């Protein structure tokens, strides 16, 4: 039998070997490509079309169908439409206020054009219960969120047999940082826990409400993967104490999010966590996460062989191609060798989906992107088609 794209992805997620390693490119906002790198890739491949922006905040392109076919990509992305109204406002081309009244900024003095949150509604002083309650929270029933979702799913299904990846933006920790400010948010875990918990519950409520409506709009039977997440790691360690903080205060909210999705659709869930994620993986498995992205192999304890040995039978790894050194600064031959190494280690017995560690960064040469995907395409698990 010929493998469909969906079968290939689902085999990997079920820890079985398909015909070749499955490939994701742009299934979610953190598995895609930055706009400058996409423009160069188009030119390099002689592919000409107007670039569709997947996220202006992350400066990320939505790879065109023609591009996805060039690399025989197995996933297709669907995500919420644009929220209508609320706090949103463009102050100038480099300054944006989002639906949580968070101010985002970028600098023009770089080829990197993504935005970072720099101010929010609870930044100053003590965050009170009253202020959280009085805040004009975004509404999961906002019609903009589901706009175009059904049509996009139909389009994917008409175009082929790809795995449909529903990307649900914005984790609760990240939005917490953004609204309260990074340091106050973390200190509130000790100084103002009641308000911290209320903030987290409000954010979880919105996420869960959005997830319910998105699954309904897409059609639960049409979705194969739900992708969400947020960073719990840093380059050299964990952001939070995995047992005393994550397990007690964040995990119950993540569990609610996962259960909401799994009770409504028979899907696999991919969780995004940059940095050193190792100490959290057991917890993520426990709440029902099936795959981990982006597998930042250069962070502490994230060496692929160790990950595969400890969790390979229970967690699928999605990503792992080094964006901090090899993709931007290596040669195409080095990229091929590293891609082959990662597929061999993480892909043994299935359980691996080829993708970069986070979005392909602006300075990555197109030759290296092609080398990575072509190495994946030339891979075979040694099975007849």
């Amino acid at each position, binding site marked *: 039998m010929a493998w469909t794209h969906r079968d290939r992805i689902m085999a990997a997620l079920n820890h079985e070997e398909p015909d070749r390693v499955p490939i994701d490119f742009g299934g979610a906002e953190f598995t895609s490509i930055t706009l400058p790198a996409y423009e160069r890739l188009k030119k390099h491949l002689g592919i000409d079309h107007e670039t569709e922006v997947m996220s202006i905040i992350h400066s990320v392109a939505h790879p065109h169908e023609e591009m996805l076919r060039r690399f025989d990509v197995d996933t297709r992305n669907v995500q919420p439409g644009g929220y209508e109204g609320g706090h949103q406002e463009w102050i100038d081309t480099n300054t944006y206020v989002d639906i949580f009244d968070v101010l985002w900024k970028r*600098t023009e*003095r770089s080829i*990197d054009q993504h935005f970072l949150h720099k101010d929010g509604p609870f930044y100053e002083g003590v965050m009170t219960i009253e202020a959280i309650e009085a805040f004009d929270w975004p509404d999961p029933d906002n019609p903009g969120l589901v706009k175009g979702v059904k049509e996009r799913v139909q389009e994917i299904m008409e175009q082929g047999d790809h795995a449909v990846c529903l990307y649900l933006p914005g984790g609760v920790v990240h939005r917490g940082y953004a609204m309260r400010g990074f*340091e106050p948010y973390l*200190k509130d875990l000790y100084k103002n826990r009641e308000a911290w918990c209320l903030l987290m519950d409000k954010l979880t409520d919105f996420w869960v409400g959005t997830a319910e409506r998105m699954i309904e709009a897409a059609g639960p039977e049409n979705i194969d993967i739900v992708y969400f997440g947020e960073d719990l790691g840093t*380059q050299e360690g*964990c952001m939070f*104490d995995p047992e005393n903080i994550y397990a007690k205060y964040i995990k119950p909210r993540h569990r609610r999010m996962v259960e909401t999705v799994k009770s409504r659709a028979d899907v696999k869930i991919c969780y995004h966590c940059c940095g050193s994620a190792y100490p959290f993986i057991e917890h993520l498995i426990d709440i029902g996460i099936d795959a981990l992205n982006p597998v930042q192999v250069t962070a502490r304890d994230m060496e692929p062989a160790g990950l595969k040995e400890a969790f390979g039978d229970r967690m699928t790894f999605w990503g792992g191609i080094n964006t901090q050194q090899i993709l931007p600064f290596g040669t195409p031959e080095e990229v091929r060798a590293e891609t082959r190494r990662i597929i061999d280690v993480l892909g043994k017995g299935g359980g691996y989906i080829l993708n970069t560690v986070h979005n392909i960064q602006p*300075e990555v040469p197109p030759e290296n992107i092609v080398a990575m995907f072509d190495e994946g395409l030339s891979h075979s698990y040694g099975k007849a088609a």
Partner: protein
Amino acid sequence: MAIQEIYDAVMEYDDTRVVELINQELDAGTDVKTILDEGMIAAMDMIGKQFSGGTLFVPEMLMAAEAVQAGLDVLRPHLVGTGTKPAGTVVLGTVRGDLHDIGKNLVGLMLEGGGFRVVDLGVDVDAETFITTAQENEADIIALSSLLTTSMPEMEKAVAAISEANENRNLNIKVMVGGPPINQNYADKIGAHGYGLDAPGAVALARTLVGD
């Protein structure tokens, strides 16, 4: 024993208690430098050690740093009064083209907790601003941060500019670098005087650099 209590209060993130105990010690005439070194800097060093060892994490480091800051606010006039000098002055910032500041801010807090005076220039900082600020503040060290691979070339340019300024303007500013994509090889390649793996590593490095 009372100095030990200050140390313990920092380890318990109790800023109110730190202030109370320092005031008691000052009233009792305890040497200001002893309170600073053995009470607060020693506690912050232990916090740093536990952070690097992976037994203590960012929220706890921030809480301990806040307790030390509260203590420093009380001690500062006395330090000036007794002519106690900081361990050194560090001009800190994220290089041009990069707006990330979480790691850089942690480095700043740990340097202050380690007894350094820190001038934080924020993010997206030009090389010349680093140099003139270091000159104005008679800084010992410029500390450069970069999260993005795309801003690494700016770090390289800044290191070159500082080195040139050292030569042409007769300065002796050391430069240290850090950030997720940075490592010792890169630091050596661009001619930095040192690389800090994490915030406590930056403090240890700064101590070595001012000791040279």
